[in-house]
């Protein structure tokens, strides 16, 4: 009984038992839930060796499961973030209704993601892909009846993507005769040109939907912001990485080997850039934290797609490193919003203010996550961004580097808006009772924040597995000439040594903090944020002067003309057109017998008229 | 020409408000009407709507301490006929009550608030916070003539000594700093 079977059994068994355990006892349900996620994660990392494959035949189709270095890297994200989010979910879900339903689908989606990474043949890849889609769909509509249209929109987009992939899989099967990914890759160069073009496009459609690429990103903000926060950290952190995983596979192993591959990668790079800009511009303007983070994760995925699409070694390192970092800081940020929503009941900036003194640990993890998201040096985000820019410049994508840089600079605006919205400004009497989120929720956040800090100085920890993964995909070993444990270089020989940077930043920072606090310590006194110098007036008790409505208004006024046209409008118009044609077709069934009889006669007459043409 | 116009106005007003006694002995374009306080709102409305006195140029309150009355004066001006009409009314000083007229002219609202704070005239139906210009004012309505400001100032504030006998303030300040008065200032000090 190979460990892979055990892992899947624990997942499935755990899911079913957790669903029914709710009736017996709440705590038992939590324990079962944690067990059915942490044990497989441990088993996976403990004794699933690279290259040790399992083959089985199901319904006449031979399936093969196994792991290689590349998918091991992504399983790091999935199972790592998954288990942390599970611990967080236990805290988040205390006292919520329909917990069994949530836990069941949570475990199923984690299983599906591990399945995708384990599957070495297209059918099991597709099976797990679909299970991932509908289990995440079921969680997206967890929040009751006003979220249905968003859920169905998400499912329709993923279904279109998945069915495009199914077509590609089946066409590959027709050509190569087997479902194995390896065979597909070997047979790909020899395929007819039309096939060589169509199969990657269809695969990229499926992966583009999940990775929220420009034209297919419409579902992402709605789905990310309306799903319960405990799941959204996995949803946007790990689930979107499956799209990235697939995209890398298609781009690196297949598209690189054909001359037209350049066009694929160029288009994808630009799509990634445009997604980044659109995501950021829309994120700046949101007043609800969930919506803001949803748009921001669409933007971050844009960076990753650009990184992977560029295709040079440094770009791949950058893209995959950013993927790991995105899973970390987006996971943390969504957990932060979840914690605040649990404590205060709302996640809208205009309602919540001044939580810094009440939820200090949540603030600390939010601060570190924001610094990582903005790409500021001491934390890991900088390493990814730096490598991305260097790869863009050294591979002569000049205008794209400007687009990406504009998106990442504008990212500072919504980063600050997130921090200011929740934690700063004047305290509000209404939130005086708010306490720090329970430990079980704060712990995962802090672990991830700490990990980001470590990655900031020693990116080697993650770059090493990425390097192995790329070697598995056919890239040369870029160890010495692109990165060392704490040094990152670009192909023109410029390098940034991260360790001294961190130590000098920390040293200077601590020196000046000490100077500021020590100097005149006796006479420095703390006064509340209500007691401010607002032209002599004494602010009344219920008056709150925090500036939170229309926070980034000046920037929005500057970019407003660019944001008038929205791709949602076109999709809605298309959907209405479809609905109208369906209505017209339905009217064919008039409902009275005579017309049906006439239809029969007409049918026979038509058959007889065209009989020699038809038969 | 002005005379016929004034006659015409007096005739029209007398026709509607019999007990209004007019005072027409002004050579220039001015006309006074004195009426009882109940009639004032209807008279103002009549003048504004029918007689074309669109503009309320001023309203003031006069304190007739000796007669024990407060007088409200409304000055209306008609842009068409270019003539001013003063509508006067007398209120009892101890309990001055008048009904609110800010629906005729909105600016009357401010005037009424000022009269209420400064003269103590109570306007029935005027919804406005009591505090208008003076903050936390506990004393009697300050604009009344029987309110002795000097005494009040004396009571509430301190006065720098030496003001009465005109002792040179500059000396006291200079001594405080221990330097003599500059010669150009000597001729002013006593």
């Amino acid at each position, binding site marked *: 009984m190979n460990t892979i079977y055990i892992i899947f059994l624990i997942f499935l068994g755990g899911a079913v038992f957790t669903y029914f355990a709710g009736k017996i006892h709440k705590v038992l349900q939590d324990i079962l839930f944690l067990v059915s996620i942490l044990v497989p994660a441990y088993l996976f990392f403990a004794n699933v060796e690279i290259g040790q494959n399992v083959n089985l035949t199901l319904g006449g189709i031979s399936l093969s499961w196994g792991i290689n270095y590349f998918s091991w890297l992504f399983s790091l994200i999935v199972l790592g973030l998954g288990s942390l989010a599970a611990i967080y979910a236990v805290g988040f879900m205390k006292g919520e209704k329909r917990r069994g339903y949530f836990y069941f689908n949570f475990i199923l989606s984690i299983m599906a993601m591990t399945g995708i990474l384990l599957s070495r043949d297209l059918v099991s890849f597709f099976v797990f892909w679909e299970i991932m889609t509908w289990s995440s769909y079921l969680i997206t509509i967890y929040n009751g009846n006003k979220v249905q249209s968003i859920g169905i929109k998400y499912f329709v987009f993923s279904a279109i993507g998945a069915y495009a992939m199914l*077509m590609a899989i089946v066409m590959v099967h027709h050509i190569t005769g087997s479902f194995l990914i390896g065979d597909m890759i070997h047979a790909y160069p020899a395929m007819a040109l039309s096939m060589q073009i169509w199969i990657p496009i269809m695969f990229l459609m499926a992966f583009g939907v999940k990775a929220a690429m420009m034209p297919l990103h419409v579902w992402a903000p709605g789905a990310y912001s309306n799903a319960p926060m405990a799941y959204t950290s996995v949803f946007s952190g790990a689930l979107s990485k499956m799209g990235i995983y697939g995209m890398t596979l298609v781009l690196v192993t297949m598209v690189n080997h054909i001359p037209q591959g350049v066009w694929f990668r160029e288009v994808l790079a630009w799509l990634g850039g445009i997604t980044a800009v659109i995501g950021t511009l829309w994120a700046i303007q949101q007043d609800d934290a969930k919506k803001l983070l949803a748009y921001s994760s669409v933007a971050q995925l844009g960076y990753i797609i650009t990184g992977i699409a560029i295709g040079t070694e440094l770009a791949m390192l950058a893209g995959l490193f950013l993927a790991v970092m995105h899973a970390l800081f987006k996971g943390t940020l969504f957990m932060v919003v979840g914690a605040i929503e649990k404590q205060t009941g709302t996640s809208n900036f205009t309602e919540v203010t001044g939580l810094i003194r009440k939820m200090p640990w949540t603030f600390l993890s939010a601060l570190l996550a924001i610094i990582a998201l903005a790409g500021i040096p001491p934390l890991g985000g900088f390493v990814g961004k730096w490598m991305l820019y260097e790869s863009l410049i050294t591979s002569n994508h000049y205008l794209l580097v400007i687009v990406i840089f504009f998106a990442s600079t504008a990212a500072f605006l919504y980063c600050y808006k997130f921090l200011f919205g929740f934690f700063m400004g004047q305290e509000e009497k209404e939130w005086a009772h708010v306490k720090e989120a329970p430990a079980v929720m704060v712990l995962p956040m802090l672990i991830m924040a700490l990990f980001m800090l470590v990655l900031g100085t020693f990116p080697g920890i993650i770059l090493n597995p990425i390097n192995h993964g790329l070697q598995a995909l056919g890239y040369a070993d870029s160890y010495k000439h692109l990165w060392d444990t704490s040094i990152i270089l670009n192909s023109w020989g410029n390098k940034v040594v991260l360790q001294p940077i961190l130590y000098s930043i920390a040293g200077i920072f601590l020196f000046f903090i000490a100077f500021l606090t020590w100097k005149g310590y006796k006479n420095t006194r703390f006064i509340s944020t209500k007691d401010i110098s607002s032209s002599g007036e004494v602010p009344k008790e219920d008056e709150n002067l925090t500036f939170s409505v229309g926070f980034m208004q000046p920037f929005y006024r500057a970019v407003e003309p660019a944001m008038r046209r929205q791709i949602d409008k076109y999709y809605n118009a298309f959907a209405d057109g479809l609905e109208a044609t369906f209505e017209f077709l339905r009217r064919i069934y008039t409902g009275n017998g005579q017309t049906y009889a006439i239809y029969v006669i007409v049918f026979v007459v038509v058959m007889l008229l065209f009989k020699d043409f038809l038969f | 020409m002005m005379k016929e116009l004034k006659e015409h106005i007096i005739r029209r007003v007398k026709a509607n408000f019999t007990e209004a006694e007019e005072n027409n002995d002004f050579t220039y374009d001015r006309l006074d009407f004195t009426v009882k306080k109940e009639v004032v709102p209807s008279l103002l409305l009549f003048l504004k709507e029918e007689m074309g006195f669109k503009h309320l140029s001023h309203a003031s309150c006069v304190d007739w301490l000796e007669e024990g009355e407060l007088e409200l004066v409304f000055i209306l001006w008609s842009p068409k006929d270019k003539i001013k009409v003063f509508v006067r009314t007398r209120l009892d000083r101890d309990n001055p009550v008048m009904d609110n007229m800010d629906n005729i002219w909105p600016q009357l609202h401010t005037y009424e608030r000022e009269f209420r704070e400064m003269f103590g005239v109570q306007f029935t139906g005027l919804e406005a916070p009591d505090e208008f210009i003076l903050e936390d004012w506990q004393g009697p309505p300050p604009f009344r003539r029987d309110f002795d400001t000097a005494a009040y100032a004396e009571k509430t504030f301190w006065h720098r000594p030496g003001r009465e006998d005109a002792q040179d303030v500059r000396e006291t300040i200079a001594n405080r700093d221990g330097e003599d008065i500059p010669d150009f200032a000597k001729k002013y000090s006593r």
Partner: protein
Amino acid sequence: MVGTPVLFIAIPLMAAFLIPLLGMIWKELVRIVPGLVLTYLLILSINLLDHVLAHGPIVEVIAGWGPPIGINLVFSALSGFLVVLMEFLGLLVWAYSYRFKRNVDYEPALKYFLMLMMLITGSVGIVLTGDIFNMFVFIEITSISAYGLTAFYKGRNSAEASFKYVMMGSVASTFLLLAIMIIYAQLGTLNMADIANKIHLMNPTLKIVSYIFFVTALGIEAEIFPLNGWAPDAYAEAPGPVGAAFAGIVVKAAVYAIIRYTYTIFDLSGTFNFLIIIGMITLIIAETAAIRQEKLKRMLAYSSIGQMGLVMVAFGFGTEEGVFAALFLMLNHAIIKSLLFFSGSYLTYNSTDKKISEVNGMSKFLPITSLLFALGAFAIVGLPPFAGFWSKLAVMTAAADSNMILIMALVLIVSVVELVYYLRVVNRVYFYKKEADVKPKRPTVNALIVMITLGAIILLVGFYPDAVTGLLHKASAGLMDKTQYIHNVLSVR
């Protein structure tokens, strides 16, 4: 337990004859006897199927006359599979409606079970017979009992629906009779194998005309596009279990008949493309109509018409894989659609006009039924761990192997449409507030058992499809080689 195919017809007819008499003795017998008969027939069919899978098809001659003259029954792998399916579904429909009619007094219950018996016997007969006239007789039996069952609720709508069905049914039988006359006039024989042998002697134009008449007649029964006007009304107005019986059994038999004519009897070249075109049109029109429905049963009706269109398309590929995919689709459709009909009828039990909006919030009151309905919806749409996925995959592989890219694309787009309207209903069941005036009715025990067995089968086939693929491969092989069929039938002498 030795037994011959003829028992499948003899025993039910005899039972149908005896039921009114037994009813005189003890009222309850009317409900019990059909169950006994159906279980016996199911066991018999399973035995015969094992026998056939081991030793090849059984051909039985009735009343001594040889094949070219006499009627013979062919119990091959394909027909065996269909018989087992029909008997099993018949048993489920009987079990489901055993107490379904509790409140209905004696006399209509007698009619109901009688007609149900006749319906099942007729469709089994269609599948087994090797003689085209005999098939005509069985089609008549099925459609007559179908008319009766549609009109079971005495209301105005069901009367109108069944009248429409009767009118269309009569048109169908006239065309069928015409086609049989042409064949008999030309070739002088009624036996399918014999006809298949001598078909090349026929005058080509008459051959095509007879084929067209056959397709029109059976098309009306099998609800292909222009001819299926009556179907949605019939399904909607018939009682729940009858709808499942229609979708599960009657349509299957009609589709089998069309396939038997196209594959074995006629040797016309363009029939396969014709099937694909007809199938695609039915699929597209039915699915687009389904999405706009407000009534649950009509929606399920249109969806089952659409699925049958997909089966026709799969048969239209003409390859062995295509047939396998089609049979797999038929199996899945039969199981899942009947589950949907059973649970659907309970979800909208007390609502007057069975509107979808009246299904809101039923999950709190009928947890198991709504869970099974959701399971059925997910399965029919073709989501992986459930049965529907494997059949969709098989259809897709077949389409790819006969490189019908456009067809595949259209089928997938339409299944997205199907996904939307099923999910809308499932969301309403789970996440909307219950309408005030609708009174939920808890399902009876036997109905629950039936639904749970169907759900279990879906999960079984979903997780371990090899259970059925072996049988289906043999059946599709059986259908493909025409000469083997003719040889078996004619050699029995």
